[in-house]
């Protein structure tokens, strides 16, 4: 047998490859399919009436089931935001840009959204925004069907209207 190697092995490669096929579930499938038709669906808590977007099977807050799907607006209010100054892998956007939480009209929680058509220094809580959809024929039933949000030009919403929808 030959002598043991003198050079130590400092690292080994160990590549992890795990493919998944996620089940969307009937509830989210309806939500995703509706995006293709420029409609945004939420689920309504049977106890409190609060509307969750994307739809949830139950309210995490009241624990009651959500038995009803309702349509919410594609316009809403920027509740909180940040200004992104570093590039994100897979997102080829001109820096800096605004990423925000948007409470859609009719929804009781906000969704994450990219805001374009705005100078970062103009971003503010309460600013009204609207969805910019991908053109007909290009929507596939995914979150990317909303290309981004942009200011709608309406007067700002009062803080009280978004305090519980951050």
């Amino acid at each position: 047998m030959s002598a043991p190697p003198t050079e130590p092995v400092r690292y080994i490669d160990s590549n992890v490859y795990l493919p998944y096929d996620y089940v969307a579930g009937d509830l989210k499938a309806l939500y995703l399919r509706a995006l293709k038709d420029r409609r945004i669906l939420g689920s309504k808590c049977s106890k409190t009436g609060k509307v969750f977007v994307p739809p949830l099977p139950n309210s995490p807050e009241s624990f009651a089931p959500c038995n009803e799907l309702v349509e919410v607006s594609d316009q809403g209010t920027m509740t909180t935001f940040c200004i992104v100054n570093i590039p994100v892998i897979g997102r080829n956007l001109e820096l800096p840009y605004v990423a925000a939480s948007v409470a859609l009209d009719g929804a009781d929680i906000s969704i994450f959204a990219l805001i374009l058509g705005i100078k970062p220094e103009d971003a503010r809580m309460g600013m009204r925004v609207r969805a910019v959809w991908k053109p007909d024929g290009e929507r596939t039933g995914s979150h990317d069907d909303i290309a981004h949000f942009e200011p709608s030009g309406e007067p700002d919403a009062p803080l009280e209207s978004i305090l519980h929808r951050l």
Partner: protein
Amino acid sequence: MRNVAIVAYAQAPFVAVDEHHTSTEILYPQIRRALADCGVEREAIDYQVGGSADYVDGRVFGFVAAVDVMGSWPPKQDLHLEMDAAFAAHYAWIRMQAGDCDTAMIVGYGKPGEGELNRILNLQLDPYYQGAVGLDLASTSALQASAYMARTGAGDADLAEVAARNRAAGARNPDAWLKQPATAAELQKTPWAVEPLRQGYVAPSCESAVCLILAAEGKAEKMSKTPVWIHGVDQRAELQSLGSRDLSKSASAGMAACKAFEMAGVKTANDVDLVELSALTAAEEMILREAVGLPARGDGGPAINPSGGPLAGSAAMSTGLVRLGEVYRQLSGKAANPVKNARRAIAHAAQGHALQHNLVWVLGNERRWS
């Protein structure tokens, strides 16, 4: 010691793949059913513990999704174990012994059909040697079966007989996946999974979600007319490296059983009426029977896996908790396939490759400590 009982249990029937619901959507109705079963609202639960695996879920912090369906307001003490949910139940039991809480909700869930379970379980092995050569659960189970067969002389026909008995029992369990019985001769004709294990000797991977509720004495009697009391419990883990253990045996299952029996005041496994084992292969069942002090095959002692056991359907991350639930059903008179006059039982859960880590419970329909 504090008397703690199982007061409710709900399980989604096993399916191969549920294409209509996410894992937490399967779980939510089970939580509602379990709470209804013991007549309380979420407010009555002090502590919630989940057993699931982010690698099975295929998402980072996947377990937080379960908090949404357990109810997240007002916040409860909450814990998650990256283990079979039976271990989550043990954790809750320990907290109850410490007097930290009186009631606990235990959930187990996972959708192994979304990923590739064998590939995922390769990551439980060390990345330098065993993981790197591509061992997965099927192959480590086969290595163990081979070691057991070499030591004991058990053959293909013996494994087939064990599997056939489980399949016959599974046919009487409405929640089982494989409800078609199969004879030993039929199972001996199934193709190899990994030799010496045939497909008929290996637990089919299923999806389910489970909720079990524990309550301490004082509350348990109010929540259930037939509480099933925990008499003893212990868990032991062995070395991860397969080469460092005698794979033909399960020393840790033996030690856990010994300690659990001691706590329960049970002399031998023959003092109980039924045993539910988390045996993912027919060989594992024989190894576990031997470890807890029962003959490796044949009838005569306690009923073994009257639910059909994992060989009639096994849901990753819930397999062990289902054993506890099946014992609860038997001892509380709620089983669809009752074992006559069942008063005391053993439930077993395992984790890791080739029975690396074992948890043994003894339960009864009377209080253990006065």
